């Protein structure tokens, strides 16, 4: 504020204005008789006042109504001042002169201001090219005002300028374009204002000109011109408004639609947060209906929740909502309902309420909630309001549905990321490549399910030329399964170097798992050790799928007894475990697998099954391990084509080939390519 004042003082226009005020006051106070000098000062003051006020750029408002009102108020004030002036102020003397000067200043300021307002009104909603017309008019008004100072002989100059000014005023008042842009209620109001303004302007001019202003001809002329301007302008305004009145409603509706569209587009960009969206919906509902309060309700199983209260208390909103749900909810209104508040025991309400609306928020699953608005003023909801609310609640419903879907997809993505992580973890736990030995060829295949199934296998090369192997299946899925797998890897890696007996090792592993494994989880495992020199295999099975021994195409099921890890932590577990020892001879094949192999499903939900597995093995027993593995995986892929894979598939195959030594160097690789071919 202070800065603004300083800025104004340093302004040249302001300085000139102050000087002219001082000059004007001095002349009018001390030499009121010299009409000419007073007039000169008055013209100077008027001119600088115009520059100063015009420079302040007072009007930034977009609504013309306050301007029209101001033009009415200013002459009214002058008339009142004039009325008391003659009673209060003495007829002569310096004091009288001073007040006289002050009154002149007031009149001058008022009319200059009125002129500026006319200027604003003229340019309101007007193309800029018409500036020249207004400026010409202003120039003629100015000239006609100063020419009043010419001697009487030359008064024709003044008169001709005056007439041209009036003509220009009439010309400039013909098109009042801003009328079209105001709403109907304001137009009616404007009609009244126009009539009042015409009367006020003419009477002010008449009274002031015969009285106080008559001594200063330029002022007198300016007032006359302005009042003529006012009379013409407001008469034109009156008729223009009158002609626009029939189409006013159409304009109203259009403008409402446009602003509603803007609000709706706001909804679409705000779908990220449901709470935020509710608040916006509540806010917009207020705006489009011109209601006084709004809130949202959300249906729950047997009741509802209230949210996004806007301009209303929780008690009132609940009372009104209660009323609505009691009276209307049974009908499941699919459109906006309007009713009066007096039925809602209005004496209890803290705020006034005359009518209220309830619009449903619909989704594909039915009505999810409602948008409520109330009006306090006696204005009830009209058809446009109802239409707007219907359209708006549709948009809001879509916005809420979008927000919900977005939230769901984010959640889904989160789960998918988690599963990705679990799969990556699982991949790191299993061997990168198969070990290679002179007497034993090893092949393995692993195909993870989308929801990590918890399969784990591993090889540990032990001292004395022995190979330990483990195949296991954790009962959980996803990230929890991958944690248990990691633990298994730790346990088996360390125990395999310490404990030779598979039975003892599994018993120990069971004990170690006791503290970490939840009761509803368990692990099936098969652990064994192969002597790479003698071909002797010792193994135990803890609830896992049996191992298959292929001898000359014949399947021998190796299924020593044994409880799954984590099913029992007493001695029963150790007692249940059986240790089996077999001697491999040339071309013997050992096949280890998880239930993902035998329980792979086809489109009829049938299992791949043991029989099919054994059949494939019998047919391929002569092939090398990688080919056997590949043929099984291919058969599974063929069997379960067009169906999702529910569980991890793991296959480990050993072949004892003492005499031939290892063959197929080229094919001796891990299972990577096979996995990709199956996962398609």
């Amino acid at each position, binding site marked *: 504020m202070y800065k603004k004042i300083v800025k104004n003082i340093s302004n040249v226009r302001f300085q000139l204005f102050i000087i002219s005020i001082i000059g004007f006051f001095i002349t009018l106070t001390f030499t009121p008789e010299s009409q000419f000098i007073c007039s000169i000062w008055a013209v100077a003051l008027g001119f600088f006042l115009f520059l100063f006020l015009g420079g302040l750029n007072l009007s930034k408002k977009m609504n013309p109504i306050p301007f029209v009102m101001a033009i009415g108020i200013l002459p009214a004030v002058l008339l009142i001042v004039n009325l008391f002036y003659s009673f209060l102020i003495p007829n002569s003397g310096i004091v009288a002169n001073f007040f006289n000067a002050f009154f002149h200043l007031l009149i001058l300021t008022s009319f200059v201001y009125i002129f500026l307002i006319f200027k604003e009104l003229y340019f309101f909603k007007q193309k800029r090219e018409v500036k020249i017309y207004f400026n010409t008019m202003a120039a003629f008004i100015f000239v006609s005002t100063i020419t009043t100072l010419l001697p009487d002989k030359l008064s024709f100059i003044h008169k001709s300028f005056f007439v041209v000014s009036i003509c220009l005023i009439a010309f400039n008042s013909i098109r009042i374009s801003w009328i079209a842009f105001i709403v109907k209620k304001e137009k009616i109001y404007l009609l009244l204002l126009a009539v009042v303004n015409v009367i006020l302007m003419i009477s002010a001019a008449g009274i002031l000109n015969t009285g106080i202003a008559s001594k200063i001809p330029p002022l007198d002329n300016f007032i006359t011109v302005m009042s003529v301007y006012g009379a013409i302008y407001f008469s034109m305004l009156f008729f223009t408004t009158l002609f626009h009145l029939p189409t006013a409603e159409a304009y109203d509706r259009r403008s409402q639609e446009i602003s509603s569209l803007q609000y709706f587009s706001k909804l679409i960009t705000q779908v990220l947060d449901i709470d935020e969206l509710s608040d916006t919906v509540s806010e917009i509902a207020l705006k489009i209906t011109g209601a006084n309060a709004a809130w949202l309700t959300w249906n729950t199983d047997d009741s509802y929740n209230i949210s996004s209260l806007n301009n209303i208390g929780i008690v009132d909103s609940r009372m009104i909502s209660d009323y609505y749900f009691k009276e209307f909810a049974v009908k499941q209104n699919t459109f906006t309902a309007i009713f009066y508040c007096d039925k809602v025991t209005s004496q209890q309400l803290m705020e006034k309420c005359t009518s209220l609306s309830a619009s449903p928020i619909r989704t594909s699953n039915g009505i999810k909630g409602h948008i409520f608005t109330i009006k306090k003023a006696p204005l009830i909801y009209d058809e446009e309001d109802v239409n707007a609310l219907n359209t708006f609640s549709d948009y809001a419903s879509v916005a809420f549905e979008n927000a919900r879907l977005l939230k769901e997809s984010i959640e889904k993505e989160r789960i998918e990321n988690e599963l990705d992580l679990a799969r990556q973890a699982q991949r790191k736990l299993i061997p990168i490549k198969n070990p290679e030995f002179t007497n034993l060829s090893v092949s393995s295949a692993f195909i993870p399910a989308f*929801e990590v199934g918890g399969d784990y296998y591993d090889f540990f090369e032990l001292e004395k030329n022995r190979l330990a192997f483990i195949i296991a*299946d954790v*009962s*959980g*899925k996803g990230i929890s399964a991958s944690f248990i797998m990691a633990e298994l890897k730790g346990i088996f890696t360390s125990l395999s170097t310490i404990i030779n007996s598979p039975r003892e090792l599994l018993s120990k592993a069971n004990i170690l798992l006791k503290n970490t494994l*939840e*009761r*509803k*989880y*368990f692990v*099936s495992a098969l652990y064994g050790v192969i002597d790479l020199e003698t071909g002797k295999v010792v193994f135990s099975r803890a*609830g*896992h*799928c*049996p191992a298959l021994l292929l001898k000359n195409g014949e399947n021998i099921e190796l299924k020593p*007894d*044994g*409880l*799954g890890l*984590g*099913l*029992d932590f007493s001695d*029963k577990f150790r007692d*249940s475990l059986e240790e089996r020892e077999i001697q491999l001879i040339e071309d013997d094949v050992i096949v280890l697998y998880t*239930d993902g192999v035998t329980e792979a499903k086809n489109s009829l*939900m049938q299992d791949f099954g043991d029989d099919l597995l054994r059949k494939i093995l019998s047919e391929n027993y002569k092939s090398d391990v990688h080919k056997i593995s590949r043929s099984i995986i291919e058969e599974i892929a063929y069997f379960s084509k067009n169906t999702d894979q529910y*569980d991890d598939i793991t296959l480990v195959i050993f072949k004892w080939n003492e005499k031939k030594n290892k063959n197929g160097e080229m094919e001796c690789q891990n299972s990577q390519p096979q996995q990709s071919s199956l996962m398609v």
Partner: protein
Amino acid sequence: MSEFTTSTKQLDGVSVINLKGFLDAHTAQVLEAAFTSLINDGKFNIVVNFKDLAYISSAGLGVFMAYIENIRDNNGDIKLVEMNEKVFNIFDLLGFPLLYQIFNNEEDAIKKFNEAKQSENAE
């Protein structure tokens, strides 16, 4: 695929849960709820009938493990009856017959419960 229901009836002081459909990780909670409500009612003598069960996954097996400790601590038991061969094989593979008594029909299982009760009373 995930269609699974349970129904519970009372027979001679024993609760019999009938399983129907596919019992896997997604439907396991249905069975968990059935066990929880029996335990909350203090009913610890439970027979589970597998007659109408089409499939059980390892997560389904886990449900039995999750409650057995609590039930046995309360002198109760879960006995399993009328398993088809496929379901039995899954239980058998993991060694469940060592941990649970499995019967051919409900009557045998209920009889077993009542025998146990009598012997308890005799003591």
